[in-house]
């Protein structure tokens, strides 16, 4: 705890903290720990990916040809850009530029939705080819041992990621609305920082998914 001279916590529900510096520390630490849990969640999917890749090397090699590299790469640019916008938004609010921050957040939300739409297009393509997960797999052009497994992995990994993107879009939208209504300022914008951290994590996870599923 900081010495008594520090400021009181700036939000009413944080009286138990004693001072503002502790409050901010705690908020950030809590978010980092939560992000660690998300990393472990995805690790539980990357581990089967690694295992099945070791078991079916040929399959994973060939499967790449059936992925839509163009759409996947566009999505990567979309998501990274949205992360940049979010970072800029946090920087803006720190300088007290609320309107700029809101605009940047709107941009990030739009890009997030774009990501989901492009993903939806990809899913539609795969569904048309009947490259569906598990029992529903009927993709004739790609019928090597274990092929259904590759696509099952693809659908689950990108699907779980897409769920997180959706949640992130929701969070950013709410934060955007709150910024517009003046809830945040240079003195207090912790939820924005935390929401930004979440979005960056979602982006980083995609930066692992993209090479593993599309490039290698």
């Amino acid at each position, binding site marked *: *705890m900081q010495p008594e001279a520090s400021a009181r916590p700036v939000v009413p*529900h944080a*009286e*138990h*903290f*004693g001072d503002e510096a*502790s409050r901010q*520390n*705690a908020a950030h*630490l*809590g978010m980092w*720990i*939560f992000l*660690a*849990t*998300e990393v*472990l*969640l995805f*690790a*539980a*999917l990357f*581990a*089967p990916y690694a*295992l*099945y890749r070791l*078991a*079916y090397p040929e399959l994973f090699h060939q499967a790449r040809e059936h992925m839509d590299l163009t759409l996947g790469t566009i999505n990567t640019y979309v998501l990274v850009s949205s992360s940049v916008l979010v970072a800029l938004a946090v920087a803006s609010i720190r300088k007290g530029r609320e309107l700029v921050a809101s605009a940047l957040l709107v941009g990030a939300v739009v890009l997030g939705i774009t990501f989901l739409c492009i993903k939806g297009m990809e899913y539609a393509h795969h569904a048309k080819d009947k490259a569906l*997960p*598990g*029992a*529903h*797999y009927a993709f004739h052009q790609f019928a090597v*041992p*274990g*092929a*259904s*497994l590759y696509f*099952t992995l693809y659908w*689950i990994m990108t699907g*779980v990621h897409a769920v997180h993107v959706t949640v992130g879009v929701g969070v950013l939208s709410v934060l955007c609305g709150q910024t517009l209504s003046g809830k945040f300022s240079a003195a207090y914008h912790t939820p924005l920082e935390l929401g930004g951290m979440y979005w960056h994590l979602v982006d980083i996870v995609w930066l692992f998914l993209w090479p593993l599923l599309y490039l290698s």
Partner: protein
Amino acid sequence: MSQSGAEPVMPERHYLNAERGLWSWLTTHDHKRIGLMFLGLLLLMFLLGGVYALALRIELLTPGETIMSRLAYNRSFTLHGVVMVWLFLIPSIPSAFGNFLLPLMIGAKDVAFPRLNLASLYLYVLGAAITLWGILQGGADTGWTFYTPYSTATGTAVLPVLLGVFVVGFSTILTGVNFITTVHTMRAPGVTWTKIPLFVWAIYGTSIIQVLATPVLGMVLVLVMLERLGGLGFFDPARGGDPLLYQHLFWFYSHPAVYIMILPGMGVISEAVCAFTRKNPFSYRVLVVSTVGIAFVGFLTWGHHMFVSGASTLGAGAFSVLSMLVAIFTALKIFTWLGTMYRGSIWITTPFVYVLGFIFLLFFGGMSGVAVAVTSADIHWHDTYFVVAHFHFIMVGASLMAFLGALHYWFPKMFGRRYPEALGIGTAVLIIFGFIATFLPQFLLGNMGMPRRYADYPERFQPLHVASTAGASLLGFGFLIIAIYLIWSLRHGRVAGRNPWESRGYEWTSESPPPKSNFHEPPSFPYPPHDYARPDVAPEVGRAA
């Protein structure tokens, strides 16, 4: 017993009567109230799991069908496991006592995220409700371990049970996030990292495990749910999948999970040993390093559940050695607790009887764990009653004893009243004997070759099963007595005063029951915890309220 000689009095305003009405409880941010609500719910879940246990033991009185069909038996042991592990043991000490005591023990007003704490409670309620709904639909019959392919194929109500556990997992994660942040950012002046009370270290270590392991469980459960719902085929050899992958992912969580179940109990024991021998810990550093050591090395041992599943021999050897390493930490703790008693002033009270039971039974439970970590010996013991006895020695003989010890040690702190001490000691002894009578025969059953999860069994196993059931009824009887006198004491127990145990733990410096804000003035603790050697410190006597 206050030194002033006057009769102890109940403080006028405290956290229980600061606000009144059901709504004030349901929307509270007060960690103490949240801890109490958790405690009540946990005890209800323990009752449910215990009813299943008694039903199982009655069924096992005869080799054939006694009181239920084979399908009912398979559901019963599954639900006994699910309820006891996820709805009782894993949340037990952290969510009830951790919540109540953590801020008190570091001199804080509340946990770091009080609203998140309330959310944890509601997620637990939601998860328990979903699981109960699954139970009402008959419940799963897969075993609490949900091994594939059976769990993806069976027609019983597996989905609601999986979903319930998934939701409770979120409760666990949020509690973990809360506690870690609290310990890092909200300690009062004087409570440096080397002066953190041992219970707080235990909760901290537990929270690390909770936060890192539970997400993996969440993902695995989702994969099994998707396989049931949509034929995903991750673990299905007919689609190129690997059933062993499920076991790896499941045990990667579930082995650390057992350390979630024991570490908080060890923290309780550390506190109670120091308080009731009035001694500093024989080695504070060893206890802390062991706690953190168990938390981390515990993640490296999951393969010892899979020695006979046809996985790599070399892997088995590695996991065996790592399991031995993690056992050393427990051995160190036992020696340290014993050493703490040397030259102390030992006061035999109900909590201390539970402490003694804990140490004794943890020793045998831990040694049986070392035994099954020996790869060749595990070939015989795996999936037999020997393993069942091993984990019940730890989970009931140790963890549950610690829970009961915590309940009796901090009962005066939470409610400001005492329970009848003689009855407490007598029941503790009854429970310890009942426990040994229940589970010692199970070690022998395992030696004989009795496999787990058998609704019917070959006749030669019957005598030991009858002995075990007899012990179980003693256990159940003991729990009943505890429930009765504790509920009675809530209203009619003798007023405790601030510090009836003369403890120098930080939580005893505030009133019993504490005020809503925990301390009347911001506290500072210039002396180390568990210090009974310094003459100039007498928190047992305390300031005027």
